[in-house]
């Protein structure tokens, strides 16, 4: 029932594309207090990335206790901002699976591209479970 480090290198492709809507960007901008400009804020890709990452973190092969997970690290590298009308795909790579003491750590890299194959953003997420208190 432990964490399965053999999953490092596994790739999960989102079965569907994500079409970025103008009102979705506005909703996200309002939620992070952004008032200027029209592009999606720098952290917007987490909306797609998190959705796509579910396939990995909930994969029974991985053995990760998702009910006790906190977000430890996050990074974004943007080739360009996400814009309304973009049709995007996400490819999630498992880059690290490790047990640190009583905590399980999983790192995922989400490559976000347009349906046409143009790079838009790479988001890297590290999740960790906690034993008792974080």
């Amino acid at each position, binding site marked *: 029932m432990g964490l399965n480090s053999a999953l490092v290198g596994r790739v999960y492709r989102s079965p569907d594309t994500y079409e970025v809507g103008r009102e979705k960007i506005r909703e*996200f901008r309002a939620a*992070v*207090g952004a008032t*200027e*400009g029209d592009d999606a804020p*720098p952290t917007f890709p987490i909306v797609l990335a998190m959705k796509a990452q579910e396939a990995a973190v909930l994969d029974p092969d991985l053995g990760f206790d998702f009910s*006790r997970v906190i*977000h430890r690290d996050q990074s974004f590298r*943007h080739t360009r901002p996400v814009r309304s009308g973009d049709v995007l795909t996400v490819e999630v790579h498992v880059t690290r699976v490790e047990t640190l003491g009583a905590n399980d750590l999983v790192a995922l890299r989400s490559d976000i591209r347009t349906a046409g194959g143009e790079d838009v953003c790479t988001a890297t997420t590290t999740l960790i479970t906690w034993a008792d208190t974080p």
Partner: protein
Amino acid sequence: MTTPTAPRPATSSATAATGTPGTELPERRFTLTRADLVRYAGASGDFNPIHYDERVAGALGLPGVIAHGMLTMGLAATAVTDWFGPAAQVAEYETRFARPVVVPPGEGVELVVSGRVDAVLDGARTRVVLTALCGGERVLARARAVVVTGR
């Protein structure tokens, strides 16, 4: 060196105020209430109950309902984009979530974001180191952004 930076017009390149290493960027204060957590949950699709349900948070050993780490990171990004103006683009942005931001019911809690220009990497790329404080404690660690200006 510590002149606050106003948003710049679309044609400007790196400005004197944001383009010099050591420049302190003006503090931004955000109030976070439970309503803000619900708004972010809806906008992001992250409905983990630790961000709105006291009992779930408590049962998991958390000190209370906590903000999404990505909300804190998103607010700090807003400070960055406001410092550099709408023409600038954030090319890189990273952080570690050092401490949970506990959001009590009612008036909520205040998040204070400040920044310092760490390096000018080349003509149009500026690296900023960010500090995010809640109750005087750092909630983000190693938070930095690389901003491309003058496009």
